């Protein structure tokens, strides 16, 4: 039996600053190498919390359960160690960093990973070659690397640049936190094509999304419905279509009521 890429067992999580509220209430999820899973859920279900906990954000406290990545306890690792071990979070809102060029940022990131793996730093020429190849694969203009990290990028550019970074770092577990939000159909297609180009027998993906739309382009092996911090239903890709048709209402969620009236 192969070791799962990601194994989440009975995960309970609360915010450090608001310990009285439990956000994740017993999550079980296993992703085998090569699989694409999707977590769908309404607003406030805990989707983004799960993404952030997996990638090592410090604002959360795991009160129960465990997360194994390639059989190793992820909770023991800091965010940078997780990244270097192959976990990648594509942010819902990538942070703009004026003053740091994307090139400089990615050079530092690639070499941090190589140091982690005990390899020598790549020289500037090899790095540029690597960036060019990945830019072509993910369909982002190489010129993007000359701009400061995410600064002044459109919503679509930001999301594409996240996928590009994942390819550059050659991550094995890609967690996409609402990478489809705010994208027009062309941008959605570029993002999806980028992810699909990375699919192979080893990599796994966790697609976190509110809508089914993304899953027409990146077809998942499994779909999980997350409501109020618990996975209440799992199924094949057809579950996403079911949700698209009936919404989250059959799961006792009244989404319109939770939205501001003026929205």
């Amino acid at each position: 039996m192969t070791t799962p890429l990601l194994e989440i067992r009975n995960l309970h999580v609360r915010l450090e600053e608001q310990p009285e509220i439990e956000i994740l209430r017993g999550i079980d999820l296993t992703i085998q190498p090569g699989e694409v899973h999707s977590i769908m859920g309404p607003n406030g279900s805990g989707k983004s919390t799960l993404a952030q906990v997996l990638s090592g954000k410090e604002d959360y406290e795991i009160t129960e359960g465990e997360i194994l990545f390639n059989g190793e306890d992820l909770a023991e690792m800091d965010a940078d160690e997780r990244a270097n071990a192959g976990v990648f979070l594509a942010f819902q809102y990538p942070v703009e960093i004026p003053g740091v060029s994307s090139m400089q940022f990615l050079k530092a990131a690639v070499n941090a990973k190589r140091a982690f793996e005990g390899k020598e730093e790549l020289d500037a020429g090899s790095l540029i070659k690597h960036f060019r190849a990945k830019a072509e694969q993910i369909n982002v203009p190489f010129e993007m690397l000359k701009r400061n990290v995410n600064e002044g990028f459109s919503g679509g550019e930001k999301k594409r640049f996240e996928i590009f970074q994942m390819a550059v770092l050659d991550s094995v577990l890609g967690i996409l936190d609402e990478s489809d939000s705010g994208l027009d159909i062309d941008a959605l297609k570029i993002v999806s094509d980028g992810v699909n180009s990375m699919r192979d027998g080893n990599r796994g993906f966790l697609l976190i999304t509110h809508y089914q739309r993304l899953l027409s382009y990146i077809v998942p092996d499994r779909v999980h419905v997350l409501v109020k911090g618990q996975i209440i239903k799992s199924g094949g890709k057809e579950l996403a279509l079911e949700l698209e048709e009936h919404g989250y209402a059959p799961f006792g969620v009244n989404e319109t009521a939770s939205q501001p009236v003026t929205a």
Partner: protein
Amino acid sequence: MTSLLTDTGTAHRDGEVPSWVRELREAGAAAAASLGLPTPRLESWRFTDLRAVENIDFAAPRAHAPKLASGAFAAFEIEELDVARAVFVDGAFSPALSDMAGMDPARVMLLSDAVRECEAELRDRLGTLMLAPEDGLEALNQSRMDDGVVVIVPDGATIERPLEILCVSTGEGDPVAWHPRHVIVAGKGSKVRVLEHSVSMTDDAVSLTNSVTEVFADEDARVEHYFLERDSRSAFNISTLATKQETRSDVHSHTVLLGGKVVRNNVQPTLNGANAHCLINGLYVGDGDQLLDNAMRVRHSAPDCQSRQHYKGIMNGKSRGVFTGRIIVDKAGQQTDAVQSSRAMLLSESARATARPQLEIYADDVKCTHGATTGRVDDEAVFYFMSRGLSEEVSRAMLIYAFAAEGFDRMELVPVRRLLAREMIAKLPKAAGLSIEV
């Protein structure tokens, strides 16, 4: 009264100076005596206490500069920057270390020579930007006018080779107080660049530098001025850059404060001709118990002028940063376009930063914007960097560097950017190993 105010540092040379210079000195001495050293009771000096200097027995610069080992001097060179250089060691001019050639057709000489040889250019200018000193220090400088450098650029000349005025403090012998006066006269349509670079050979050299630089930019002239302050942690450094700018002239002032115990940086441009422009760009990086006080006073006296002030501070330890940005728009300053921004980043609980915008506007059709922020390294950004595999230390260092980088980018002399970036990184906590391309 302190010894600083009564001591007659340069009196022995008075016999050689023209009477009009002696009169300026006497007026300065009278003003200094009545104003005294500034105290925190003065609004403009509220955060900066100079009382410590009163307990130090400062000597005047010696007549001849002490010799320096050539190796020690090399450490202060700005790599890959070809400069003409005037070197002062403990306040005394060092002919052996200086090379003021290569700036033709500009004339570059010591003030003591210039007051005789260039009276026509200096007599109506020297001291005119200091006539109403706000505090005893400017007056004190006027009373001494120790030897500094005078640069006179003829109309239409572009001087490629920058002049570096390098002030070295050795930390040997008695602590020295000196009050140099530098003057830059840029003729119509001329271009010139001057760097003032203040360094120390030891970590604890006590010195007091109270310098004044007067810049006269004639029509269409362009002057770039850099002030790189890297004194020892026991040094007091008070500097004043005052400019008078005629029509369409452009003056850029770049200041970087890294060293010193108490540092006061005054920048005082007067936009005197229509469509003049000034850029006031600054970065101050403090730690330990440093006090870095920046006092800007931009005066718009003519219509259609632009001023841009961008200052950034990075404060660690128990250091304190102050930015006071005064913009005065005279009645004649219609269509003034003034921008001021002050941003500070605090790296420790005990570091402090104070920003004080002060607008005095007497014209009715002006655009003045100002903004001040104080914050810490953004945790979201740190997490973003860490999620790409960078350690927390490197992430923070890169973000702190990025905060400052905008200021470097405004400097046209790339070797200066590199030097400052390196020095700044060396001063950041846990930034060793951070490699940054500038």
